[in-house]
């Protein structure tokens, strides 16, 4: 029996059709972050499962693509956090690059973002990753996610504030002040 995913407007989507329409893009997104095609396939499954489970609680008017894209970005970054934690942080950058299938500088950016975006919403995290990892301009993010330029600016400002607070809480400012 085909699963039908209830949409807010009353229409339904066959899960297989939804998968065929969105999974390739989600797979590219996940693989671009975790650097592993098989793990990305698993993340795509997780993305659809989360989307279906939370569908009835969505409050904004974002399209299924945007919602799925946000969830996929969040799930992939989440996976990196767990990997970083379980590997006890300090791996050789080239080893990490090989593991992630990325250039070393991208790995460092990814791991930093993974830790700094904890606690952000899926939308905020997606905007932060597009800007700081993928190099999107604010206009590019706005067009990509159907947000206003003003909203993107606000989210990025909030992210920077979040990073500063986190750094302060971890004592980075004190250490810099004392030359440590």
């Amino acid at each position, binding site marked *: 029996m085909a699963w039908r995913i209830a949409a807010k407007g009353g229409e339904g989507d066959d899960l297989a059709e939804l998968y065929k329409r*969105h999974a*390739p893009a989600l797979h590219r997104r996940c693989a671009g972050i975790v650097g592993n095609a098989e793990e990305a*396939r698993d993340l*795509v*499954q997780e993305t659809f499962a989360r989307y279906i489970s939370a569908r009835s609680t969505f409050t904004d008017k974002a399209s299924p693509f945007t919602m799925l894209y946000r969830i996929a970005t969040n799930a992939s970054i989440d996976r990196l*956090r767990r990997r970083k934690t379980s590997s006890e942080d300090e791996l050789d950058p080239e080893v990490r690059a090989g593991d992630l299938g990325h250039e070393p500088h991208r790995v460092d950016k990814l791991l930093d973002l993974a830790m700094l975006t904890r*606690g952000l919403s899926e939308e905020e995290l997606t905007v932060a990753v597009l800007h700081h990892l993928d*190099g*999107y301009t604010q206009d590019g993010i706005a067009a990509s996610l159907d947000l206003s330029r003003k909203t993107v600016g606000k989210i990025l400002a909030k992210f920077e504030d979040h990073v500063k607070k986190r750094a302060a*809480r971890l004592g980075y400012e004190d250490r810099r002040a004392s030359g440590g």
Partner: protein
Amino acid sequence: MVADRKLTDVELERELAGDLPAARMAEASDADRSRLAELRAESEAFLRSVDVDMEVKRIQQRVERAKPEKAPAWWRFLIPAGALAAAAAVLLVFLRRGDSPNHVDDDIQLKGSGVALIVHLATSGQSQQLGDGDSVKPGDRIRFEIDAPKPGYVAIFGVDGTGKVTLYYPDGPDAAKYNPEDRLMPGAIQLDQTPGDERFMVFYSPKPFSTTTTNPTGMKLDSDIVVLKKIP
């Protein structure tokens, strides 16, 4: 982005998914169309490489596994903040010594990066994720999600604006078992009228620990904190 590109890759992905407005696609450059063709070919190759029916089956299995055993509205478990305050909690005494879990007594070693506390604000049967510095008000209902990499044991404490420490989860002297598959903690709390910031802290350990231990020496706990601003 390449100079003669007008659309981002994400917009082209939306086009492939039938989600991009036609007016926007009409602005595409030759470079955009070339990139679109590449993405389309990759998408077709991906779909040829997977068994869609099997993927759908696995997604369905994940959805079924994620369903709670009982699914009543979670606010039926609503617990007034403060009702679960732990008496004689020596661990809490140590917590009072610092403003954050990273400044507690040296006897307790806090690692700080293995667990994340995610706070949700419940509104009309829905929920909104809150981040550090977000505002809440008295009467708001809060639910907790814990993100840790492996099964273990967890406890959630709160410190209100007066410095009063409350054990929110679990309701007992022993840290609760944690399974990464069940990140959302049962129950919810309702914020009271106490003014000032609300600090919520999670402690995680792969081994059982007591929330009221009298001998914290050598305890190794992962921790995370979320600070919310309470507005009257």
